[in-house]
């Protein structure tokens, strides 16, 4: 019994080590002053410093990228929460002609792999002269069929008594949605928000074609420029960029980790 337990901990601990190693190494490498020393650990403290961070912050557009990422992801997340919930509520609760068709439309586009949209969205934006604008980086991503589906499932199981009571009080359907249904949908909204946020924060293919000027890049596109072009061609400076980019995601994850687990668990229960 005891040896088995030790074995369990050993396997789990080893896996945890493998998972954490790249994070720890990146943090370490970002403080190493010279690329030459990155693969040889040393106790000589003179080898370490914040030079890489200073370089990235002063020599790249990282402040712009931060600003762009926060603004773009923020607006996208808020719009998704609002629009997906509205549509989800309508599909679950409101009676109108063509509802079934719209539900199948939602399911249908939910199954569309986003890669097929890369070329047409780029061409559309280029034709309108909207490359390198917030419009191009935000508007196509303001709704998400997954979010609509999620909200519909939530509102289908939502008790109707509250709505009935509100109707008695003379509230309109739309007021009921905004004042009663939406505030009570908090768990579903959080589940939606975290995934929409992480997807868009980490999104690379679309921003990389819709923004071509360094001051319009989002963080992933900017970091790609740092690590993969002649921008710095320095390992340690690249790692400093990676650290600066990853910190917000990690903080966000730590704050909401319970919700992340819950949402993933729900996916599992479905299966």
């Amino acid at each position, binding site marked *: 019994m005891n040896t088995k337990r030790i074995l369990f901990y050993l396997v789990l601990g080893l896996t945890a080590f493998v998972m954490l190693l*790249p994070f720890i190494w990146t943090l370490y490498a970002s403080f190493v002053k010279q690329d030459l020393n990155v693969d040889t650990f040393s106790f000589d403290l003179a080898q370490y410093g914040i030079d890489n961070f200073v370089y990235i912050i002063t020599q790249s557009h990282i402040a712009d990228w931060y600003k762009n990422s926060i603004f773009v992801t923020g607006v996208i997340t808020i719009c998704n929460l609002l629009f997906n919930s509205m549509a989800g509520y309508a599909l679950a609760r409101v009676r109108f002609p063509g509802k079934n068709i719209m539900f199948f439309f939602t399911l249908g586009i939910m199954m569309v792999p986003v890669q097929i949209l890369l070329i*047409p969205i780029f061409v559309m934006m280029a034709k309108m002269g909207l490359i390198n604008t917030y419009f191009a980086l935000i508007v*196509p991503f303001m709704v998400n069929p997954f979010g609509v589906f999620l909200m519909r499932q939530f509102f289908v199981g939502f008790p109707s008594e509250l709505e009935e009571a509100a109707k008695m009080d003379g509230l309109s359907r*739309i007021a009921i949605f905004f004042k009663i249904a939406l505030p009570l949908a908090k768990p579903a909204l959080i589940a939606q928000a975290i995934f929409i946020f992480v997807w868009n924060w980490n999104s690379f293919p679309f921003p990389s074609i819709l923004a071509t000027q360094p001051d319009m890049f989002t963080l992933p596109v900017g970091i790609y420029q740092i690590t993969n072009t002649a921008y710095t061609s320095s390992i340690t400076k690249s790692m400093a960029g990676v650290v600066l980019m990853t910190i917000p*995601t990690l903080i966000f994850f730590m704050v909401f980790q319970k919700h992340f687990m819950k949402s993933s668990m729900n996916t*599992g229960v479905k299966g």
Partner: protein
Amino acid sequence: MQNVSTQTQATKVKGKQKISRTKLKEIGTGVFLMAPFLLIAGIFIFYPILYSLQISFQNFSYLNPSAAEWVGLENYKKLLQDTTFLTAIWNTVKLLIIVLPIQTLISLVLANLLNSKIKGKSFFRIVFYLPYITSPIAVGAVMVYLFNQDGLVTRFFTLFGLENVAWYTDGDYAFYLIVLIIIWTQIGFYTVIYLSGLQSIPEDLYEAARIDGASKLQQFLRITVPLLKPTTFLVLFMGGLATLQIFEQPYVVSTTGGALPGSPGDSTLTMVMYLYTQAFKYFEMGYASAAAFIIFVMIFSLTVLQYLFFERKNKG
């Protein structure tokens, strides 16, 4: 008699009018609530699919869009003879064949270990999950250097007889670097999914097996694995879809130092990377759209299959 019937008719008509007014209001509400979603999804998801289909039948080049001409099935014909595209498909399928069983098995084992009576469960869960939410661009960039010549992990693997080379530049090693990155990224997510599957297995099944004298291994093979079959299907489907669409990590790894996407050779070229490169590096958008449609059909069919599979199960 007559009087009564006309009266009821009158109330009926009145009632109908009332209903239709509330109905109209209800329809208005529906339209208002659906409008933003339908508008944006229509313009930026539905229409682009049709537009993409149109472009795929043209020799559309972004550098000279007005010169686009209809070429029929020309792009598709050319694609199916394009050895680079076929290599990209083969690489993606190879990834699928190697990654899926390994990551599914590891996730299953990890979930079972986590489901036992151990301390620090939530710590392990969080740590395992971390790679999944980290930007694939960052992950790719870091892995390149961990698997660099003299890199930390490269040196570790030399203990097992592997060579001290930069994995991303070596024709034999680069592909397996991608395999390792995908597995490292995803197992945490699937472990959590397996965990939820495990928690839905009733405890008394194990109790009964214990009374019958079944060993832990027998319990695992005879109870856990069969009862987790639906979860395993889900993990395989989701993992399959994610792998078919893999792009960022191999893209970052292969383009390190300004090399061509998919390098060395075409050993790390994936389907989506091929599409991205044709469209946005060579601006052959008609040709790339045809590739996109072939990829679309492959991924879409797997998604529909998954949907039908679980839909039928949920109903049955």
